[in-house]
């Protein structure tokens, strides 16, 4: 069952990434990055000028980590989850409620 859920999620992610070209940042961010490779303040200037109408947030940090670079957040959550999977697996604690060693 878990296998099918995983497969469905991967398929959904693949289908969802087909819409990648429609997400923000708008293409002018990439144009700015390409044209001003030596001037890294250009994309940050775009974010600071446009994050309120782009994302609806008042906090630029939240706008970046929840909208512009949401894949960072997703993979950070995945990182934390994998770390906790490892901790759950390698630290087997005898719980008084369960009585038995955990799986």
């Amino acid at each position, binding site marked *: 069952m878990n296998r099918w859920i995983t497969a469905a999620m991967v398929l959904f992610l693949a289908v969802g990434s087909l*819409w990648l070209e429609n997400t923000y940042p708008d293409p002018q961010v990439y144009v700015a990055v390409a044209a001003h490779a030596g001037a890294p303040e250009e994309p940050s200037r775009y974010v600071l000028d446009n994050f309120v109408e782009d*994302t609806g947030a008042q*906090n630029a940090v939240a706008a970046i980590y929840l909208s512009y670079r949401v894949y960072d957040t997703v993979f950070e959550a995945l990182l934390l*989850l994998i*770390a*906790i999977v490892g901790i759950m697996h390698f630290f087997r*604690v005898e719980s008084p409620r369960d009585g038995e060693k955990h799986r």
Partner: protein
Amino acid sequence: MVKRRVDEPRYEGAEAMVGSITGLLYPFIIVFGMYIIFNGHDTPGGGFQGGAILATLFIGRLIVNPVNDIHPHLMHDVEQAMFVLILLLPIVFLLMPLHRAYPLLKEPYLIAMNILIGMKVALGLTIVVFRFGFDEELL
């Protein structure tokens, strides 16, 4: 490790003071963490920070009353469900550009993501601290 019943914690001496003061702090910790999470899109803060503050609720309770009475596997399952939602919500809202069709949903999206991240981080940090503490019999 001294095993105690959960429903009747027995505090003696200085432990009673620590237990009482920590018990007094619980609602403030909850309110502060929820405030950080719910205002993460408007003020400094966010899901991770608020989740860490909510995790200090369980960690403070662990320090006062070291009983391994959480359900780590249930919390782990809930955390996995949170991760699935964290994965699906940006895909649905950002990649399939609902944020262009429904601009009014931008702020609820940010709040929902912060709540999910906060719950995930709070559960995860709680599991980590309880596992480390009771594996080494530190408490």
